[in-house]
């Protein structure tokens, strides 16, 4: 691999990382809005920006890194408690976040420079003067927050034999800040016993540096095991060197953080009306970390107290009940006892009860999560909760294909077994082959299930962008709305998750833009000022349901009828004949938009029809309920996995075909007299509906049909929904419902739109899967 390719790869992997960080930033900002002084949250934001800056520079995104630097500064000030984050700063940061995203994608970062500059200027107004000048000079010496450190370094006597020059390490320290170096020469023996190849020197360095201790420690990375190294921040009490106090201090840190986190959990759980599994799990995790630390530190009392709470919570989590007032009271009592215990420990240790320095023992994200006051903010994924690796999707697809092929290949075993038995009279061997085949078959199915599960992704990634969006729309339109997210852990096939994002954006936008009324209008209508939009995902059988519900103005069937007639989409007669439920469906017609005026947010006339067809492409359905004045609810039903879907197996002209089940409205055996010929097309009438009929056998026949179709007495007819309305497809026979794994047919057949792909049936035969849109 050459350098260019290497860097390209680097950039790609950073883009992935940054996308996550930016999303994280988005949701953190919204939380900050309600808790601008939450230290854990501020730290999380700082870290995210810091990583974007650092890794970005490494990956070659220089402009982006430089820009991120300014945002980083703002939060550095904030987390040092030198300024308080205001909504304006949050706006700016969100703007900056969007720019960072753009800088990540663009090839010409220079074009964004003017916009970036504006944001930087705006940010600079909030920064203290000293920081600004320091940032400009990049001197590193006077930047806000330099700390005094004392570094002691005594290399191993044999250090030269590892090719290390200790003086160069001392020089590295100098480069980190303002250093006063004192060489300690007491170790040098009398000349007679001095070995010139040994190192007898040690160094004391008083270092004033902005860099964290970790950075200073890094200087000694290669020699830390065999050298004597001490790095102390000057404000730290010298007592921390005491062998007993060190671990106790760190235990007290863990204790303080845990107790603080528990406060948050207790606050969140107080008066809970529903089970809050996320909160309880995080609560449990914190307690368990705390307990492990207590055991390690020889604090059986604390450990025992924690054990009681852990038991309580475990029961609550496993039985999925809400935290009742009684349980809450018990937990709170345990918490108070612990607090008292830790307090006395702290007194005994003479460390004082001041705020402890941050210890990395507890992931900050969990601590921050604990303090989330309402369920409106998306719960953060605990960083330590699961170990994940990133895999190229291509590799996953390859694995998927292989697993699929294995499923086909296993079909050879029963045939082989049969031949051995029947043709060669080897029934014993035949049975063994069959057993082996069954075994492989099981493994193949397990493998396939496992591969499918890899592709499952929580819908969280899509959901987490909405709080920001709703907030933005509300700010622009001077509305008030709260977005409730539920079931973010619901898993869907990765492709579905990716493709559902756009339709959902549209629907959530609509809900706020068209649904939620202005606070004044709401007050007049006797509703709370602030509207409520709920986005909810859950599993139901093999489907995933996503609901978008708003308590806004609802849709007016009368107005929809009027609009549709005005735009010439339906006739006035048809409109008059429609009941309200059917009229609501008009919203899905292309070219109909109900917004009184076009807004920046939505209402460009492409809308619900696109949404519905996008969802249909994912083999999903969309339904709509709405009550004027009360709100609307849109329900999307999606198959959880794209790979396995259901189909109707039919036979035509001796060939097997599969209709995707979601496209089949119904199957009927239609009497011949219900089919009429008009011009050159056959039409069927069924329950006052007229639709064209075609014969599948003819449709895929290589010979053009001559003359009229002679219909049988009774015609097996699949009524299929297409993007141009329903059609009837006549087949020879229905063979039943099947589970299918649709495999694309490959590039050479891309132009054939009549089929979605092919599938292998249980008995190893191949059937083509019909794309209904390709039939008309």
């Amino acid at each position, binding site marked *: *691999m*050459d*350098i260019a390719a*290497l*860097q390209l790869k*680097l950039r790609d992997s950073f883009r992935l990382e940054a996308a996550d960080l930016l999303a994280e930033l988005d949701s953190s900002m919204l939380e900050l809005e309600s808790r601008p002084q939450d230290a854990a949250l501020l730290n999380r934001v700082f870290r995210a920006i810091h990583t974007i800056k650092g890794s970005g520079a*490494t*990956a070659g995104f220089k402009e982006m890194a430089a820009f991120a630097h300014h945002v980083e500064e703002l939060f550095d000030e904030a987390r040092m408690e030198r300024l308080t984050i205001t909504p304006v700063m949050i706006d700016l940061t969100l703007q900056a976040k969007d720019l960072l995203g753009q800088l990540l994608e663009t090839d010409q970062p220079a074009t964004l420079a003017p916009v970036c500059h504006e944001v930087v200027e705006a940010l600079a107004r909030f920064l203290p003067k000293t920081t600004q000048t320091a940032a400009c000079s990049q001197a590193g010496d006077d930047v806000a927050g330099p700390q005094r450190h004392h570094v002691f370094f005594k290399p191993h006597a044999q250090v*030269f*034999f*590892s*090719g*290390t*020059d200790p003086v*160069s390490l001392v*020089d*590295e320290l100098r480069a980190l800040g303002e250093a006063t170096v004192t060489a300690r020469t007491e170790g040098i023996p009398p000349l007679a016993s001095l070995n010139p*190849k040994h190192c007898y020197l040690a160094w004391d360095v008083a270092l004033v540096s902005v860099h964290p201790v970790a950075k200073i420690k890094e200087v000694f*990375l*290669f020699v830390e*095991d*065999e050298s004597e190294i001490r790095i102390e921040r000057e404000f730290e009490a010298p007592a921390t060197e005491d062998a007993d106090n060190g671990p106790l201090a760190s235990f007290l840190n863990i204790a303080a953080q845990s107790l603080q986190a528990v406060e948050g959990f207790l606050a969140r759980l107080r008066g809970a009306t529903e089970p809050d599994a996320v909160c309880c799990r995080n609560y449990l995790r914190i307690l368990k970390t705390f307990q492990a630390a207590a055991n390690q530190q020889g604090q059986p009392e604390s450990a025992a107290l924690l054990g009681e709470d852990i038991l309580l919570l475990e029961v609550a989590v496993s039985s999925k009940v809400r935290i009742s007032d009684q349980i809450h009271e018990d937990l709170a009592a345990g918490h108070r006892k612990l607090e008292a215990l830790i307090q006395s420990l702290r007194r005994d240790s003479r460390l004082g009860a001041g705020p402890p320095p941050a210890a990395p023992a507890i992931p900050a994200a969990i601590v921050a999560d604990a303090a989330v006051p309402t369920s409106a903010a998306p719960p953060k994924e605990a960083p330590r909760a699961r170990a994940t690796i990133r895999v190229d999707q291509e590799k996953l697809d390859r694995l998927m294909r292989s697993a699929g092929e294995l499923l086909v290949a296993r079909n050879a075993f029963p045939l082989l077994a049969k031949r051995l038995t029947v043709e060669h009279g080897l029934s014993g061997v035949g049975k063994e082959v069959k057993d082996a085949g069954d075994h492989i078959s099981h493994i193949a199915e397990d493998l396939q299930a496992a591969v499918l599960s890899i592709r499952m992704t929580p819908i969280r990634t899509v959901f987490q962008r909405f709080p920001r969006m709703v907030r933005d729309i509300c700010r622009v339109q001077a509305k008030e709305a709260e977005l409730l997210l539920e079931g973010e852990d619901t898993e869907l096939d990765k492709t579905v998750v990716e493709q559902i994002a756009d339709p959902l954006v549209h629907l959530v936008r609509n809900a706020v833009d068209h649904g939620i009324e202005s606070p004044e209008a709401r007050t007049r209508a006797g509703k709370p000022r602030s509207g409520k939009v709920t986005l909810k995902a859950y599993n139901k059988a093999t489907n995933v349901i996503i609901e978008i519900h708003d308590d806004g103005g609802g849709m007016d069937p009368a107005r929809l009828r009027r609009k549709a007639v005005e735009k010439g989409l339906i006739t006035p007669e048809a409109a008059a004949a429609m009941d309200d439920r059917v009229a609501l469906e008009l919203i899905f017609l292309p070219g109909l938009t109900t917004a009184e005026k076009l807004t920046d947010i939505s209402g460009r006339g492409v809308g619900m029809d696109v949404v519905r067809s996008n969802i249909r492409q994912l083999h999903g359905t969309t339904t709509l309920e709405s009550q004027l004045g009360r709100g609307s609810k849109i329900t999307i039903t999606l198959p959880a996995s794209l790979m396995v879907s259901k189909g109707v197996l039919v036979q035509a002209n001796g060939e097997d075909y599969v209709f995707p089940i979601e496209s089949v409205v119904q199957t009927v055996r239609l009497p011949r007299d219900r089919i009429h010929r008009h011009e050159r097309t056959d039409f069927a009438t069924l329950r006052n509906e007229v639709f064209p009929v075609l014969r599948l056998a003819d449709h895929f026949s290589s010979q053009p049909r001559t003359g009229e179709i002679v219909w049988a007495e009774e015609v097996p007819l699949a009524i299929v929904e297409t993007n141009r309305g329903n059609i009837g497809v006549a087949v020879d026979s229905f063979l039943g419902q099947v589970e299918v794994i649709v495999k694309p047919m490959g590039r050479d057949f891309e132009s054939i739109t009549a089929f979605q792909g092919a599938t292998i049936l249980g008995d190893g035969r191949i059937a083509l899967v019909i794309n209904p849109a390709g039939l008309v």
Partner: protein
Amino acid sequence: MIVDDSPTMRQMVNFTLLEAGYHVIEAQDGLDALTKGSAQKIDLFISDLNMPNLDGIQLIRRLRATPQYEFTPMVLLTTESQKEKKMEGKAAGATGWIVKPFQVEQLLAVVKKVCP
């Protein structure tokens, strides 16, 4: 000198260091490195761990035993899973290590660190 049996790896290190102003000699394994190292004075060895003929740790041990390279910096290329190898390397006299896969900047940082 970069010692690695993978030509791609050698090229990558060579190219990167060349850009940064270093002169790089390539050796394809430990033995090759010993031969080339005895012909001229090398200021820094960067060596892979697993190589045919003579592996990285043996190479460092052999080099350290020569007066010429007693104090010369030698950096091992390791992978994350070879933690115990890191210690073994240190015992043999390695100056430091670079964990693969590494970024260009990391390589340059380590080189600058051990060979200022």
